């Protein structure tokens, strides 16, 4: 899509953050101004849609009203932004979405790691650790969130295909630590032989899970037969800490820094009228073609005790 190029840096980029109450997004929000400085992008004050797509729509209207020429957003509801995207397309305002891929409506670039890949990686890790049999618990996010659903579906599909002898209990926690703790506790009471846990979000599930395991005396080293293998998702510093201590075994690092960096990178590129093509990029990722735009699939590394001290991981860079 064509953009009104009036010379690089003076093009205003409007950005909307999806929520202010989760660790992952909090890190992302912190990276944004830093990356904007590095990339010399002209960023307007950010709005925050508090996990509400109706607010997102209002915020985008306000941003364009104030003169934004490019919009960066992270719609947590991938369907309900369709109209907004169409309106922005009509106004010739390119859109970069972060973390989620809108179902409908034109996007310039989607910047995300593949959430289905998270689920698959977790499944493969647990399947191998358990030797293909036993019981595992999946602490799901909210079923109404696309990311939670992608992780959950991919995890279940992979388990069914590759490890049919593993029983999976899925617990809908609504991203709430309290529900996670209660459900896990109940499930462990019912099935004391559970051997693996997949947590959809380290930020909310990590501490409650450890607390339940600790109370049940199950927080023991991998060598101990009572050990429960735990894989997390997000890659926040506390998960790395827990991996180092041996409390959990792995996590999938969702690259908050890269989300921020490439969101702004593509926003600036859009402002400058650049175009991209599917294929490998110079930063170790692949751009794929969608029916409504392009998607840069950023790498999401599996972090275990072996690579937990890798300084390129974003979780090792936050103070």
């Amino acid at each position: 899509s064509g953009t009104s190029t009036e010379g690089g840096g003076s093009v205003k980029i409007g950005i909307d953050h999806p929520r202010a109450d989760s660790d992952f997004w909090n890190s992302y929000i912190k990276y944004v101004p830093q990356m904007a400085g590095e990339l010399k992008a002209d960023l307007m004050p950010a709005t925050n849609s508090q996990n509400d797509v109706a607010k997102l729509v209002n915020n985008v209207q306000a941003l364009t009203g104030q003169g934004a020429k490019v919009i960066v957003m992270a719609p947590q509801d991938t369907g309900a932004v369709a109209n907004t995207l169409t309106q922005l397309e009509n106004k010739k305002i390119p859109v970069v979405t972060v973390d989620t891929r809108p179902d409908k409506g034109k996007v310039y670039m989607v910047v995300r790691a593949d959430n289905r890949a998270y689920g698959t990686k977790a499944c493969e890790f647990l399947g191998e650790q358990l030797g293909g049999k036993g019981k595992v618990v999946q602490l799901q996010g909210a079923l109404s969130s696309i990311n939670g659903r992608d992780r959950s579906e991919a995890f279940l599909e992979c388990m069914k295909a590759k490890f049919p002898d593993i029983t999976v209990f899925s617990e809908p926690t609504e991203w709430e630590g309290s529900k996670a703790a209660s459900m896990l506790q109940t499930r462990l009471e019912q099935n004391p032989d559970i051997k693996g846990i997949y947590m959809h979000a380290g930020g909310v599930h990590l501490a409650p899970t450890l607390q339940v395991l600790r109370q049940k005396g199950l927080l023991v080293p991998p060598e101990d037969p009572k050990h429960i293998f735990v894989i997390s998702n997000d890659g926040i510093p506390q998960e790395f800490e827990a991996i180092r201590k041996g409390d959990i075994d792995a996590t999938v690092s969702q690259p908050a820094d890269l989300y921020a960096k490439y969101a702004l990178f593509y926003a600036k590129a859009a402002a400058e009228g650049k175009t991209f093509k599917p294929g490998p990029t110079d930063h170790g990722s692949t751009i794929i073609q969608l029916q409504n735009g392009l998607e840069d699939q950023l790498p999401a590394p599996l972090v275990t005790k072996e690579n937990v001290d890798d300084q390129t991981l974003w979780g090792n860079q936050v103070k």
Partner: protein
Amino acid sequence: MTAPAPRLRLARFRDLTLVPVIVLLLVVGAFLDPTFLTPGNLTNVLQQQAAISLLVLAEAMILIAGKFDLSLESTVGTAPAIAVMLVIPVSAGGFGLGLPGTLVIPLALLVGAAIGAFNGFLIIRFQLSAFIVTLAMLIIVHGFLQGPTEGKTLFELPESILYLGSALWLGLPAAIWIAGALFVAGIFGLGYLRLGRSLYAIGGNADAARAAGIRVGRVLYGVFILGGTLAALAGVLETGRLGAIGNNQGVGWIFMVFAAAVIGGVSMDGGKGTILGALTGVLVIGLVQNILTLIGVSGFWQPVIYGAIILIALMISRIAGGKAQD
């Protein structure tokens, strides 16, 4: 023994106590951001508030009649979603009944009315606490969105359901006209019709209303059904504005709805308040949200500022209204 006249005159303006607040917000907004007072932005504010304002209208009537409905917020998502699923094919997430797409709006309104009728049934027939019945219904009705869709967003919608929420009539979004017309109808109905006035009588003293020959049960049924229908219409408008029905459509609205109604002078104890007052409450909340967005307050602290403004509006409406609130 006769009451002094000035005080009475003032009472008539009690529904307008928020007007100074609105004026203040307009001035402050214009001062803080040049975009604010542009017709485009103000139109946006109205359009953004159109759907929620219908819920405020519905809730104001229910509150005036002395009852309570929390489940309205769930109807906003569920009513249009069920209607859509009745008409779209299985491949798009529907039930595959193959009903014609033009029926979708009437179906949505019907679903809303049915939810309202069921609320009324439990509250009026079984004399259950309206708060808890509609709280349980809030959960159940939302389950009827999440269950059939399995948490997925419906985005292949029949054209007809999108029309109202996205069309322009005479240069203004249709949603604004619709909400405006319904508010005018509400102001007139509750101000000048016997049926409307009977809501005040029921909310003020149900026994007295019954003694005066008002069919209390029947009127209350009507109010709940109308409330559900308005919530469904709000859902249709919101669907058109957003272009899809997410699982969270309407979720979390109800608190704002109550805040708007109460700062607009509607009493939680029934029998008091006006539709015009409720409208000013909606406007205050819409303007505050818009200003906070425009000046880009940090998302982390936004709730504090927002809540504080509600408190201040509440105090102003208390001081101007002159009476203790319930």
